[in-house]
């Protein structure tokens, strides 16, 4: 049976490590479901936009972005340090995703884009559950994600 909802932002990726493996094909409708799910999140984020608190600015070089993406794909978690003591919180994921979005706007890297979408699924999953300090960044990230995916769809399909 074809699932009507976009499900990939409904699960904790760390607990469902095979979430993306052999994902079924649902046709064009699936793309609409994705946009609809992200738009709902976007609406919530925009409602909370006034609630902005200052977040420590983290610097992400391209090398670091690649390292963090790799870590996320393998461990489903990201740590600031190699000893794996200082783990990313939700706001850090938003900051990383924001940085990736600006990188992808200039140059499409499908591998990074795939990880970017997964990180945004994780943010969407956690949005209601955890505190976030950078709604503004998240809002801009989601808008950029929407733009990038729509552009690729226009080009490819």
């Amino acid at each position: 049976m074809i699932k009507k909802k976009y499900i990939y932002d409904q699960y904790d990726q760390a607990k469902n490590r095979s979430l993306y493996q052999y994902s079924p094909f649902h046709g064009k409708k699936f793309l609409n479901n994705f946009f609809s799910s992200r738009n709902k999140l976007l609406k919530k984020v925009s409602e909370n936009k006034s609630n902005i608190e200052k977040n420590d600015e983290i610097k992400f070089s391209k090398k670091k972005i690649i390292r963090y993406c790799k870590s996320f794909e393998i461990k489903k978690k990201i740590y600031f340090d190699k000893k794996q003591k200082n783990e990313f919180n939700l706001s850090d994921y938003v900051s990383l995703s924001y940085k990736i979005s600006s990188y992808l706007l200039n140059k499409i890297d499908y591998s990074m884009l795939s990880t970017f979408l997964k990180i945004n699924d994780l943010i969407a999953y956690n949005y209601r559950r955890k505190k976030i300090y950078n709604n503004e960044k998240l809002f801009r990230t989601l808008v950029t994600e929407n733009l990038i995916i729509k552009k690729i769809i226009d080009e490819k399909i």
Partner: protein
Amino acid sequence: MKKFKNLAILCAKNSRSIAYLDTLKKNKILPNTIILMDVKKNYKHLKIKKNNFFNSSFDIDLFSSQNHINLIKIKNSKINDLKCIHATKNLKENYIIYAANYGDILSKKYFYLKKKFIHVHPGKLPEYKGSTTYYYEILKKNSISYSVIFQNSKIDNGKIIYSCTYDLKKLKIKKSEIDHVHDPYLRSLILLNVILKLKKMKKLKSKKQAKKNQKTYYVIHPILKHISILSKI
């Protein structure tokens, strides 16, 4: 049919191993031994879809008994369990076709056994390492490539025996069936090519992968997978 004395297959029952065995059988190539990891759990990737390319109901037990192939079944095991490593160690065959389950990665212990593990990787190496690379390649180039390698202890890093690229304009496939039908079938055709070469030459030439342009891909996000499947050819 005569068995290929120097050839074994290390596999689980999945669409890939079924396609391999069926294609080899149709071309009168019989492995001397099959090590079969008999996994009970019904993973979604173990689903073998009915199709027009290979026999989805291929019966490994029947095939082995009819052709007097040595079938070693290892129940409820994972690839790196000692039982599997021992069974591989005791093989007389030097060349082993590898077709285990998704995510199974041979441990270093296998590479001390001095066997040659033949693996068909989806993607041109070293440019497309990792997983679901065909979807990425479709998005970038509208093609699908495969590389046959001798596996070593590093993932997708072994010496290249053979590689080829299919242009999707010429290859009439239903892209929504790549995972369970076309990928295993295309892999089996490329494998056949290599095994025929091995049979003829008795050994296989291979070359080291270039260090330049290496890129690793991870399981593609379903959105990109859908765009790849729905993309114009």
